[in-house]
């Protein structure tokens, strides 16, 4: 079974599975909205709404109204969702498929570790990113009207590219942990990696405020560039202004492909032996 056939098989499985995770998706839509609104109204409970909006304006370097601040906050919350869903779900699935579910026999019989996990790393982030960021559409359309749709499409383009990069990043990290270490609980990597990357990205605060250790960890993933892209899209609604950040994500993507393929090959050889 080649790469394309594996992609088809994984896509079929994801489509069949989809209904089972509807409750999780509903939560993945509501939580970031609460998070985004909390980011504006919670500090406002201490120091007033206008103060918070002016601080956000100072952060993005352009005067924002309350509506624009909300759009900005909602767009950025998708970084949290995508990192949490893609990195969290994929690393848990990879480790439990290898360690607990025993999917390895089927994989080795029909294809190779590299092909299967490469197919998963492309198909799953696409579906997960698209489905988990659908919540962006209603608030953007409500606040900005038709222009909100333009922002949504640009956000989605940036998120899909970063989603695939995150998927490959997770694969490159999780495969050696699943095959060559004694980590037996699938949630251990996911529970630590996701919040550590997000805390290191510093989403709503200048990256210079983030402690160095967390920042270095976040720099290994595409999350910082992803965050920068979304900030530019949310404020200026122009993806072309973010072309250098997108280029950085693409460069990281290439590096992750190389690492993931190398690691996959080593795991395949190790498992067959």
């Amino acid at each position, binding site marked *: 079974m080649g790469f394309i056939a594996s992609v088809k098989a994984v896509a079929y499985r994801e489509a069949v599975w989809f209904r089972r995770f509807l*409750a*999780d998706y509903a*939560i993945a839509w*509501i*939580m970031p909205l*609460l*998070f985004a609104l*909390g*980011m*504006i109204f*919670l*500090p406002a*409970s*201490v*120091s007033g709404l206008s*103060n*918070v909006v002016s*601080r*956000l304006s100072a952060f993005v370097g352009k005067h924002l109204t309350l509506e624009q601040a909300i759009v900005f906050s909602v767009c950025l919350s998708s970084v*949290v969702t995508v990192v949490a869903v893609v990195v969290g779900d994929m690393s848990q699935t990879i480790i439990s498929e290898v360690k607990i579910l025993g999917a390895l026999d089927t994989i080795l019989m029909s294809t190779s570790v590299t092909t299967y996990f490469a197919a998963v790393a492309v198909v799953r982030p696409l579906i997960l990113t698209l489905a988990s960021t659908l919540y962006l559409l209603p608030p953007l359309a409500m606040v900005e009207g038709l222009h909100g749709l333009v922002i949504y499409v640009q956000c989605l383009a940036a998120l899909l590219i970063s989603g695939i990069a995150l998927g490959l990043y997770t694969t490159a990290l999780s495969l050696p942990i699943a095959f060559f270490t004694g980590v037996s*609980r699938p*949630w*251990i990597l996911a*529970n*630590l990696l*996701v*919040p*550590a990357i*997000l*805390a290191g990205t*510093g*989403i*709503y*605060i200048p990256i210079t*405020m*983030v*402690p160095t250790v967390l920042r270095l960890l976040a720099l290994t993933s595409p999350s910082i560039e992803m965050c920068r892209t979304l900030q530019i899209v949310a404020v200026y609604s122009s993806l072309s202004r973010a072309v250098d950040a997108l280029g950085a994500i693409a460069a990281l993507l290439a590096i992750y492909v190389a690492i993931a393929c190398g690691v996959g090959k080593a795991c395949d050889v190790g498992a067959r032996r």
Partner: protein
Amino acid sequence: MRSSVTRLARLLYIGLNLSRMHLVSYVVNGLSAALWLLVVFVPTVVLTGHPLHAFRVFLPGVFAMSVGAIGMWIATEFTRWSVYQGLTDMFRECGLGVLHYLVSCVIVDCVAMSVATYFITACGVAAYISSSLSIVLPQNPLLFLYAVALSVAPYLLCGAATALLYVRTRISGAWTNLFQMALALGTVVPPKAFGIPWLALVNPATVVAEVMRCAYGAPSIPPSILLPLAPIIAGIEIALAIALAERADREIALRGIEFRF
């Protein structure tokens, strides 16, 4: 009296041994919770423009909210995930129920984990906003301990209420993610934001948040009324928790419970 004390001691012993089996998961989950709280609260604290004051207002709220949320997760574990491993059945075969499971987890999950997570989070936030870690320490340690002791009451009440909800419905345990957000009103969102601060006491965890705010010198409700009132509220909460947990047990006895995710 004596038998109930030994029973409590046995429950705590069971809880300690159960948590020893999952030591790695506990460490990971504590760190994970602390990191998530950093993701949420560092920007919030920074965006207020008065980070030190915001630190003293929000962080006690975080403690209170996480205590309630832990209660909810423990109840979810008992009525959803642990059904598969047979832990729920094992407890019920020994004549124990929802409240006993919650009590058995009190030392490790409620007190030790929430205090540890709180201090890791507080040190983390302090690392972002200030150069010294001394802002983490409460001005009045006795009131801090008082708040930690009071936290058992909302833990039990939130846990019992969640257990009752889950044994009565077939919804996925993932919804606990959302229910715990309701606890933010009155705890993380300070009672001042409600107009009438007393309204915030509807949330069972508010008392804990307010007493801990007193320990940091930033209360919304006057301490002279709050501090004597707190044990009365806690007593009512525990009585309610016992009643709700009994109803949940009766529900399981009537209809049984099956594994759902």
